[in-house]
């Protein structure tokens, strides 16, 4: 039995369709990424999985429980990390944790112990009694995550848990999520950070305009994107024209850049040294270059036809 299974989720707000036939399943110990631009439908999907929204159609089962029949029991098995920092700003970190632990059904002592343990896990034990309002953004994000984990849920739903955090907090959050998965939690991780998907998710769903564009492992998705390695070069002195002629599979990406750099698409990463030699031979002087392997982002662009956007789309 899947820890979480959603089939054919559809949700619309008036004429606007937010989700159209989204299906996913998550096993225990698995982290499934939901990748998509803002408004793609990730939050709507997670809200339906968290039983906060009723889908127009489709079904959800969490640990075999249906939200229609076993909503309260189902909710106790869930840990939901909303995209916003859903904390009481005037309460301390510990008080926030204890409250949600108790709301999830823990007794007073049990809640205190679980809260202390969870604070330790997210690296906030020294700040346990500090008011949320004086914590840094990264700390709040970690606490936001901790509040969803304090009752050790079977299923963890994370909606962009690392938005706007510092690298240290991001690492802490990712480590905590991985740890939860290793403890057997089924995790749905929504983000528009490709890197995070690549780092922690065994599988990912690419969502755009409320539809699942592609799904699979990261490698599978990159392969599905079909993109080549790229090289970005900045010149002190540009080489003579036609310097790249005769190098197999190397072509300049035809778009104008105002910063004097060029983008090359390579057939293989082994061509980098040859390219640099050619430039030098053509009188050019390179002051900086970057080499990009094909990434999930590339795959996303390839699959959706556009880069990740910051807004728009059909999601909520």
């Amino acid at each position, binding site marked *: 039995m899947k820890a979480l299974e959603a089939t054919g989720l559809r949700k619309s707000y008036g004429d606007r369709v937010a989700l159209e036939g989204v299906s996913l399943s998550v096993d225990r110990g698995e982290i499934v990424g939901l990748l998509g631009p803002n408004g793609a439908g990730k939050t709507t999907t997670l809200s339906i999985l968290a039983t906060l929204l009723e889908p127009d159609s489709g079904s959800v089962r969490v640990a075999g429980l249906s939200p229609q029949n076993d909503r309260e029991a189902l909710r106790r098995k869930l840990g939901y990390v909303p995209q916003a920092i859903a904390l009481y700003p*005037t*309460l301390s970190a510990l008080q926030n944790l204890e409250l949600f632990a108790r709301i999830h059904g823990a007794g007073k002592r049990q809640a205190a112990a679980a809260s202390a343990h969870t604070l330790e896990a997210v690296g906030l034990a020294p700040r346990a009694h500090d*008011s949320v309002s004086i914590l840094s953004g990264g700390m709040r994000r970690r606490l936001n995550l901790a509040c969803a984990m304090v009752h050790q849920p079977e299923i963890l739903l994370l909606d962009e848990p690392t938005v706007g955090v510092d690298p240290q907090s991001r690492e802490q959050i990712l480590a905590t999520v991985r740890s939860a998965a290793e403890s057997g939690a089924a995790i749905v991780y929504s983000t528009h950070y490709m890197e995070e998907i690549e780092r922690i998710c065994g599988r990912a769903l690419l969502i755009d305009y409320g539809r699942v564009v592609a799904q699979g492992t990261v490698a599978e998705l990159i392969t599905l994107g079909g993109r080549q390695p790229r090289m970005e070069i900045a010149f002190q002195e540009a080489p003579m024209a036609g310097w790249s002629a005769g190098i197999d599979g190397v072509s300049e990406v035809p778009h104008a850049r105002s910063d004097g750099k060029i983008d090359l698409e390579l057939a293989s990463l082994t061509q980098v040294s040859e390219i640099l030699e050619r430039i030098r031979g053509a009188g050019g002087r390179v002051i900086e270059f970057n080499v990009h392997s094909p990434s999930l982002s590339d795959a996303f662009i390839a699959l959706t036809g556009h880069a990740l956007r910051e807004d728009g789309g059909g999601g909520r």
Partner: protein
Amino acid sequence: MLRAAWLIFLNEFRLLTKDRVGLAMLILAPVVIIAVAGFSLGNIYGVRPAVNAYDLPIVDQDHGSAARAIIAALSRNPAVHLESAQSVAGARALVGRRSRVPLAIVIPAGVTAALKAGRPAKLVLYVDPIKRIEVAAIELRLSRMCAEITARAQDNARTRISAANAELRVRLERLAALATTARSDAEHFRHASLSRRDAAQRELDARLRSAMAALAAQTRAAAERSAAAANSELERELAPRRDAMNAVRAYLAALQASERDFKRWLANLRAAAGSHSADIPPPPAFPRPPTPAQLAVLSKPIEISPPATALPEPALPNLSLASVPIPSLAIPDFDAEFKPLLAAPAPTLPGALGWTELPAGRGPAQANAFDQYVPGFGVTFLLIGMMMGISLGLIDERDWGTLARLRAAGAPFAGTLLGKLMARFVIGLMQMALLFAVGRWMFAISLGSEPLMLLIPSAAIAFAAAAFGLIIACIARTHDSVMPFGAVVSMAMSAIGGCWWPIDFEPGWMRAFAQWLPTTWTMQSFNDLMIRNLPGSAIVWPTLATVGLGIVYLIVGIVAASWIYD
């Protein structure tokens, strides 16, 4: 759900304790406003006016006793602070130019004289039309003062008239008594004179009679002496004759005895003669001797008494006292003259028609302004706190995401609402209780005869306000709209419901509308308990009305909030 409600209830308190400023403002804000309103408007109610007495310039052009009485009366009134002005122009200039000078008073010359002469007199008030309310409040006090001064003057006049009447009456009574005494003395004198005259007359008569009797006695004695002398002479002359007569009388007596002896002899003879007695001729008859009495007269001594009537009584001379006739004194009938005068009611001044305040109910006639403002502004801030607390709390939680998070964590929305409402209800109740305690301590408000009863309308309005907060949260769904909307609604409900002023100030349509507001019934309850001093039973229906309206708000609020926030 109840567990979630309880946890949310506790969390609300925890959230409130974190907001120390908000917590302090729950009490501080109403106390500040109550103090401001109470001290500002309390003067109109007449409570604690000394702290903000109005400055009243006064010009005394009369300098009489009435003017002094007016100034003294105003000086004693703690609502005003008199400031003597030298001229009318100076006093007028102060009105409006300086704060807290709503009017100036001029006591025109001649006021005292007019009043003493029984003519009406008027003070002149120069008023600032902008300060009509203050002017009206002071004019009311002035009216009362004038009435009191007039009444006092009338009382004094009445007292003087009464004293004069009493003195006149005493004098009249004394005069009447003197007159009566004089009349009595005169009568007595007259009677005494008459009596003395009669006595003199009687004495004169007696003396005359005595003199006459003495004279008669002397005359009789002289006559008796003459008679005795005559008798003596006569005796001397008659003595031999009486002896002769006695001898005759003795002879006659012997003759008479011889006759009797003869008759006895004859009888014996006849007896001895027997049958021949008839033959014995009758003896010759003896002449009848004089009777002894006739014979005694012969021997009776001759006494010559003076003839009783021989001496005529001397006639009394008609000597009447030629006394001066005592004339009747022409003393009037004082009783007839004075009694109607004394019986007639003493003339007095007509009484002044005034009025006195008595409480219609069991409470005092005059209330402490804070008795109105503490519950009134308490309810106002309760409404603001509850409406803002509930609606902003919901909006905050929605914006923070905690509302969704709580639901996702298994707290039913109804439980969350219930917890929030319960917390706010308890906070509101505590707020009201604290306000009453502070009001009692700082402003000496009345808590009525059953202070604990105040918790009932407090609880009812806390419940209704909390429920209405849900409706606010459903109508105004952002911070920016809740603040003005909640403030306007809570203030309008407070004002129309009689929290800021007596509801009877309002026009009929507004009062009709007020029946649908919980504030109206709550204020009625507070007024009944605190000011009218009614028992707890008086607030049953108002409380039911408040709770009923709260239930309606709650149902509407829960339905709307579930639709909007759930």
